[in-house]
């Protein structure tokens, strides 16, 4: 950081805030009591810098001092303290190049060379008056280094080539969209997304409908039902609990109303409950969990082949029964079951 002084010559004698800035000034002044209005010195200097083509001239600083009824020297102290207030003229596009470690490791030094070659010395406006640059400390976009800030916007993930192109375009009056200059979304990993890509995750359908009451005892593992520190009680009562649970299951089955069969809804074919361990592991179908398995079992569905054989009407009936509108199709139960059935055979 070098000694900072006003460019008195370039600053001229007068400065006026743009008329549309007045509203913003009032906004800032309204934040502080009248006798503490000097608190607004930094926002006002910032607005003055904006209205003065990106740098703060001496008359602009005086205007701020007069608006806030501050001695000039007090505003001068603030303006020279913060390097974000530039006391020398800047180009139409002022490049703030981050040279701090993460950006430096990602090639900021190359960008610096480009600035030196294409614009000139730091803090000097180039011949056309369109460009100037300075090196600044971390701008807080380390994950996107190397990066620069041009006027108000960040240009990220720059390489020598992309940055040189940006500079050339700006010099020739071509606008450049700010943002990333590699294929990546904000600070997300480079390339296309590989997780959370199912659009259904984002269309609001997943959380719709409930198959069972939340916290229903049957849906939770036994241990969760037990109050902490009640282990001995649990051991003692284990048999009775199991018995109660069976009864509850039966009750659900009895009370669950079976949907009506119509032309396009048909109850799938069922089989007799086989002996334990002889059923297929229906959980292998993506989308089917232990609760669903239980339901399907209670309906008489135990094998992949059964599901694989479902047609449209069966799907519709199951949908109705499970209150999982469209889930069978969406989660591709039937093709999955067909695949799994094939696998089982071979």
């Amino acid at each position, binding site marked *: 950081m070098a000694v900072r002084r006003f460019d008195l010559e370039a600053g001229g004698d007068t400065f006026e805030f743009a008329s549309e800035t007045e509203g913003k000034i009032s906004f800032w002044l309204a934040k502080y009591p009248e006798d503490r209005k000097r608190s607004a010195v930094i926002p006002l200097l910032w607005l003055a810098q904006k209205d003065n083509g990106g740098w703060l001239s001496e008359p602009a600083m005086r205007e701020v001092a007069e608006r806030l009824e501050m001695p000039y*020297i007090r505003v001068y102290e603030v303006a020279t303290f913060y390097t974000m207030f530039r006391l020398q003229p800047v180009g139409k596009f002022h490049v703030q190049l981050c040279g701090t470690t993460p950006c430096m490791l990602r090639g900021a030094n190359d960008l610096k060379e480009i600035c030196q070659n294409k614009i000139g010395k730091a803090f000097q406006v180039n011949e056309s008056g369109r460009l100037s640059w300075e090196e600044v400390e971390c701008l807080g976009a380390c994950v996107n280094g190397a990066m620069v800030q041009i006027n108000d916007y960040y240009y990220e993930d720059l390489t020598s080539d992309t940055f040189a192109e940006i500079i050339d375009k700006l010099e020739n009056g071509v606008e450049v969209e700010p943002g990333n200059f590699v294929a990546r979304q904000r600070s997300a990993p480079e390339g296309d997304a590989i997780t959370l890509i199912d659009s259904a995750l984002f269309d609001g359908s997943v959380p719709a409908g409930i198959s069972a009451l939340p916290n229903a005892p049957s849906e939770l593992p036994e241990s969760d039902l037990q109050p902490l520190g009640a282990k001995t009680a649990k051991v003692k009562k284990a048999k009775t609990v199991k018995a109660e649970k069976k009864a509850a299951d039966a009750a659900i089955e009895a009370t669950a109303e079976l949907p009506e069969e119509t032309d396009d809804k048909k109850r799938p074919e069922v089989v007799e409950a086989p002996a334990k361990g002889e059923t297929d592991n229906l959980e292998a179908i993506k989308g089917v969990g232990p609760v669903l398995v239980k339901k399907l079992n209670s309906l008489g569905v135990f094998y992949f082949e059964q599901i694989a054989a479902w047609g449209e009407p069966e799907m519709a009936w199951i949908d109705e029964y499970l209150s999982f509108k469209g889930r069978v199709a969406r989660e591709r139960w039937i093709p999955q079951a067909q695949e799994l059935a094939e696998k089982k055979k071979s």
Partner: protein
Amino acid sequence: MSDTFKLVVDGKEVEVPREYTLLQACEEAGAEIPRFCFHERLSVAGNCRMCLVQWEGAPKPIASCAQTVGDMRMNPDGSPPNINTKGEYVENARNGVMEFLLINHPLDCPICDQGGECDLQDQAVAYGRSDSRYEMNKRAVEDKNMGPLVKTIMTRCIQCTRCVRFVAEVAGVEEIGMISRGEDAEITTYLEQSLTSELSGNVIDLCPVGALTSKPYAFNARPWELRKTESIDVMDAIGSSIRVDAKGAAVMRIMPRVNEEVNEEWLSDKSRFVWDGLGRQRLDTPYVRENGKLRPADWSEALSVVAEKLKGDASRIAAFAGDLACVEGMKAAKDLMIAVGATALDCRLSGQKLGITPSGDALPRESYILNPTLMGVEEADALLIIGANPRVEAAVWNARIRKAWLWNDLKVGLIGEPHDLTYDYTHVASSTSGLNDLGAFGDVLKNAKKPMIVVGEQAVVGDSGYATLKAAHELALECGAIVSGDDAWAGFGVLHNAASRVGALDVGFLPGEGAKSASEHLSSNCADLDTVILLGVDEVPMSQFGDSFVVYLGSHGDAGASRADVILPTAAYTEKNATYVNTEGRVQMTTAAVQPKGAAKEEWAIFRALSDLVGKTLPYNSADQLRDALREDVPSFAGMNFAPGNAGAEALSAPLPAATESLSDDPVFCPIGDFYLTNPIARASATMAECSLQKQTLEVSAAAE
């Protein structure tokens, strides 16, 4: 919670008020704490870190200037905290601080004006290392312009910010600041504009290093070569305590002395930098006008010419005293005039109605001194200034008013032309007729516990002058500004603007029975006078002396000397032991620092010699005998260096004689056009001329905007 706090400093237990800083507490215990940024009269900054001490149990050394004693906690066992201001721990801490301070400080003591009286130099000897470990380039800082008085060598600056705090807090003109930051931080004025404060010279004393030094004094002398004489300033009626530093026959500089009751430790720029005027334009031999031209003469010739004139018609002889006349001179002049039978004496050349009523009745001393005292403004809670601009008439006192306004919530009202006084005030009216209706400020005065009413000299000038004085006194009585008894408060006083005035009024240098006042004589161009003796009168238009024979006694060739028919050279205030009475009625004496220039003599000796020649020998042969006579005549001269203050409440309780005129509707202007050029010594000073020019340029450019 008790109001005091116990501490053990270096094993010695002290009990201090809770609001004391640790530094003050350590000093109370007799420990010496080095410091750069801390100053008793400024706010605490805590940025030099030189005052580090050890607080047993604290993890780090404590900056004692920034630690309030009341915020400290006891030791775990409930005993008072132990502080060490000596020992290895503290020495190490200060040694480290000193090393950092010296990293960027140039090693140019041999060419630095601060050398020999430099805090950094002294403390580097006490706490510094013997050599530097720093091998990089030192930083260099551009020197800044701060005007004709303050020279800057900014590379020497250690950023203590004393100067920044002084101009913002005491001088009340925010002109110095610290710009940029970190190692680029620099002290400067805004775009290197000159300082406009009339107290700016004090930053030179405040600067603990050689960054801000005196420009006129630059490379003139080393402190150990100077003869130091304690004396009194006569540039205004405050009578600041000064120290005159002289080398050989020349005064090299003037510094303030601490005097809590008068100038604290500040000094106005005029008082401080006027010394080069003591060596210029001096009258060092008597002159006699011959064929319209002044020619040098010897004393016997000049005195015999004057004596001849004094033997003439006594009713056509007058003596007027100017702004710098000392009491001894005026006493001798008065005695001589009485001896020859002349009564036309006066010290109120602009027509101030002080000392006597327009009809010639004597007024009590309390009616023309500043009874509430300069220091009293810190007790007051409301102040009405009538027709004065304390900023130029009593610059040092203005800083005290500002202090009271800043810290004690003093409410100030002003009657007279508005000025920037460096504090907020209610402008009541521009003319003295405003005394009839003070508006809202009247209530402020009435509700105040200790109201203070100060009349400026300019307010009592002119026909309505006495009416103003009377009205102001009445107001004081009305609003309870005068309370006698145990809680005495004499809240009424006059602020003078010339060092001689109160002394002259005390001596009774006033028109005698039936004699006209000076302003009456002057407005008629002295038609009734043949001979006029001027004791350093330079501030009136010289054409007003008409065709009279003018005898001028003074030290400098100024307006009076060029009009004079006989010039009798006298000693300036640094060349004689002379008595002055300040605006509070405080009798003080100057001390001769150097010999009078050439053949110049003290005034009283000149009148004593003249009295011989006219055959009316005055009854004293030495200044001491004269002072004895004076003490007998005027008891107020018996006491030295004290202000009567509230003792005047008794006398002020009685109303003043009635006034015949009514209050004026004319605005009261400040009598001092140019602060830097108010007397012959200042007008002879090149430094003051430069300041004046600087000020005019600033005013012109401000007016152009």
